[in-house]
């Protein structure tokens, strides 16, 4: 940690050598915290089509995520399919978002006390089960 903090943020995506030495966190470049807190279990993730040209080739796990989210899929399902902890998946999603390879849509903000229309839709849907 000491020393690396002096590096400008713009270099973080480049040679992240120090981080990659930390074995358990190889997949996520040594970071343990997402750079974007807005990935929740229900954030909807979709691969950008077509994928942007150039840039680094995605790592195998990143490529797997891109295949899994060719159609919109929520973070919780991605983590289950990848058999990885949500916290690890979120960090990889941050990488993909930064690289412009995915889009992320936060779940709709709900207001329990006022959103009668939404509640009615949920009820109607349950009634059809």
């Amino acid at each position, binding site marked *: 940690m000491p020393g690396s903090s002096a590096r400008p943020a713009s270099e973080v995506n480049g040679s992240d050598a120090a981080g990659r030495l930390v074995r358990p966190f190889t997949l996520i470049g040594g970071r343990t915290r997402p750079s974007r807190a807005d990935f*929740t*279990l*229900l954030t*909807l993730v*979709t691969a950008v*089509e077509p994928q942007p040209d150039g840039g680094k080739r995605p790592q195998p796990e990143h490529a797997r995520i891109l295949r899994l989210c060719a*159609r*919109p899929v*929520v973070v*919780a*399902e991605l*983590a*289950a*399919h990848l058999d990885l*902890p*949500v*916290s690890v998946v979120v960090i990889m999603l941050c990488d993909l978002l930064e690289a412009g390879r995915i*889009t992320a*849509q936060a*779940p*709709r*903000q*709900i*207001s*329990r*006390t*006022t*959103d*009668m229309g*939404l*509640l*009615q*839709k*949920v*009820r*109607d*849907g*349950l*009634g*059809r*089960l």
Partner: protein
Amino acid sequence: MAGSDPTVNGTPAPDTVKILIAGGFGVGKTTMVGSVSEIVPLRTEEPLTAAGLGIDDLDGIEEKKATTVALDFGRITLSQELVLYLFGTPGQQRFWFMWNDLAIGALGAVVLIDVRRPESSFAAIDFFERRDIPFVVGVNGFHGEHPYGPDEIRESLALPEHTPVLLCDARSRESCRDVLIALIDRLMAAAAQDGGNAHTA
């Protein structure tokens, strides 16, 4: 709505909502999720982080390997625009730090009760009451047997009168659906009571 509605490869992305299925260990949460889910319940496992260790009393845990919290969940596509996720929340009290994250943005919760050991669900009831998260109580009758009526159970749990208590069978799709509908009805009743006086979200 118009203009800001995100579309993905031409398909509008659906809205997602979630309901928590809570209760003590082995009370039937995952069974309930599986009964109504259109997919086989999925599981994610999260290592207990340092943050979790700080909160939790892990004295009782003797296993040397890393402790994980398993989270089971299912999905119900309610319509083309709306998908409901059901999260079976980890039962043990020491996973409360995870409940906090799960509770954010949830419509409400179902607290499942095993009549043979209702005390195992006290923590869940307490959690939702303290945070003002609306919930209904589902009494999961094992082998479909219900020795007590809803009122007896409400009284023994010291639940307020407005908290619905439903006898259910976690193995039955219809029964679980009815519990979920009871929760939505409770939410709608609360919304109607609030009238239009707070449209500030």
